[in-house]
């Protein structure tokens, strides 16, 4: 009887480990390369625009995933960094004529500094709800400051006519050449994925994951909680800031509610949760599902956002590990 049970058990784990052809990494990589690099050459301007937005949100969700998915610190104010990056870069280019390429770095840098500032009170907190409220309050402050400083930001009227990225040689990034912008954000995303892979596979990544599993255990094993949390906040805020400033120079119009509204946070959350928290490909796939889904379901009107809410609830109840772990069991 016991042996039967054992073999059954063995069988089950064998079945679970069985790999389908589409689950091998080679197929996965080449497929995504084809989809991301080659396919966009053959699509129209509208689709290209959606694809670019998708990748911007993928970068943003990747950065949030670094804090929430890998370190277990659920910040609900991540859109603040996106907005800070966008506004800093846009204002520098409008007021001082700074090149958007520098804006990308400075926007990220300022976002990183504000990430450090907000992580200071977060360091003392352990319970998720406290952190959620604190970061939500922080983002609200940033939004109010941006919309109240009418002299600088024109408030809710917003900034318009923001310079696109200056062309390199003959490669132009204005709205007539959307493909170039698309490849630029693709390159940014690949860089971000590379950096995140490097970080999480290194000692710092192990420290972060141990914080996620148990803060006390991590601390007792000599993980410096303060340092690790500061580091992860800074890095993820920097990436979010870069995504924001790319968004500013790509869309060329900014209003406080378009980049600093709670709906941006909602989008980040939905993308990451649907794709899979704590995975690399989750936020990217989630972004494709959510951004494109929302765009192509526009004909549903108001129902679209209702469905959005229901989907979020259903995913949390039935598939909390996200799509990526459901389909590709081997995915990290």
């Amino acid at each position: 009887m016991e042996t039967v049970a054992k073999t059954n058990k063995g069988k089950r784990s064998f079945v679970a480990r069985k790999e389908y052809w589409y689950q091998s990494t080679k197929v996965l990589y080449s497929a995504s390369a084809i989809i991301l690099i080659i396919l966009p050459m053959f699509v129209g301007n509208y689709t290209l625009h959606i694809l670019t937005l998708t990748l911007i949100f993928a970068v943003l969700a990747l950065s949030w995933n670094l804090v929430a998915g890998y370190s277990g610190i659920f910040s609900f104010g991540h859109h603040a960094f996106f907005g800070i990056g966008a506004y800093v870069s846009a204002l520098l280019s409008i007021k001082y004529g700074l090149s958007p390429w520098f804006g990308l770095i400075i926007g990220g840098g300022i976002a990183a500094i504000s990430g450090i500032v907000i992580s200071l009170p977060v360091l003392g907190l352990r319970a998720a709800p406290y952190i959620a409220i604190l970061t939500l309050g922080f983002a609200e402050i940033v939004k109010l400051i941006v919309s109240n400083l009418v002299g600088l930001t024109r408030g809710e009227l917003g900034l318009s006519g923001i310079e696109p990225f200056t062309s390199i040689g003959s490669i132009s990034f204005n709205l007539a050449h959307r493909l170039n912008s698309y490849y630029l954000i693709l390159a940014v995303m690949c860089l971000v994925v590379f950096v995140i892979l490097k970080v999480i596979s290194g000692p710092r990544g192990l420290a972060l994951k141990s914080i996620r599993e148990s803060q006390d255990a991590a601390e007792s094993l000599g993980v410096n909680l303060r340092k690790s949390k500061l580091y992860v906040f800074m890095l993820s805020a920097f990436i979010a800031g870069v995504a924001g400033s790319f968004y500013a120079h790509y869309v060329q119009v900014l209003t406080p509610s378009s980049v600093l509204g709670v709906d941006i946070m909602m989008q980040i959350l939905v993308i990451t949760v649907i794709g899979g928290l704590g995975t690399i490909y989750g936020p990217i796939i989630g972004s494709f599902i959510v951004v494109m889904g929302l765009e192509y379901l526009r004909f549903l009107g108001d129902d679209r956002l209702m469905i959005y809410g229901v989907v979020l609830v259903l995913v949390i109840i039935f598939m909390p590990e996200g799509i990526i772990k459901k389909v590709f069991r081997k995915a990290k």
Partner: protein
Amino acid sequence: MDVTIVLQQIINGVIVGSIYALMASGLSLIWGTMKTLNFAHGEFYMLGGFFMFILNVQAGLNPILAGAISILFIFVVGVIMQRLVIHYLMDKPGWDVSPLIATFGVSIFLQNLSLKLWGERFKNIPYYLGGEASFFGINLSYHRILILIIAVVVIFTLWAFLKYSRFGMALRATSQDRDAATINGINTKKMFMITFGISAILATAAAIMLSPIYSVNPWMGESLLLKALAVIVIGGLGSLVGAIIAGVGLGVLEGVGILFFPSEWQNVIAFSILIIVLWIRPSGLFGTKEW
């Protein structure tokens, strides 16, 4: 500065603060029993406002009857939400975050549902009591006085209910130790559902009283939810007294603050206080325990 103006603002602040306290006590109740937050609490407030508008203005019922029926409806909504969403998340891994995300989803759903059902036009409910009282140079509409009275009565009733009623004792037992409560014959699942219902009632009581002053619209819950969240954290999660003191304190601070700062900076001050309090005292001003 004129003393009466300051006094007027302090009284206005106490009135608004009592509503903050009412909203916050609902959140606090849920935290106390389930150790989680409800990001859809603002939508209970919003739905309450719409129920009141439909019953009082469109159906022409008198305010007391309309309010009573709204409260009955919202209780059912709260119970259903707990049973359909929160119930399935309890005792599962990730419980500390999953309800936050799920209630966020519920909030989007309810906002857009009411947008679809009732449109985006702002709706107004007339004052339940007209007229104005005037004493020592301070003017107060009877409606505002009524707000304060109702808020105090509702919060006091809640306190007495939790403290002395059989159900309240069962509720407190559940929040202290769920297993022990179950052994003693308390149906904890039912408790959780009813807790959500009561919490929704508290939000609706706030909506019924505030709707004549502000208008009814699908987004009305958002800003008040943020305020209520700030209040329960400043007061200390799970502390009813803390929520009341922090709520009234914040209301007064905002009321007096208007004399010194432009009103659009009001919320910046509120959230800055939140961050500073959490930084210095992570358990909140009156919280006994850091969660």
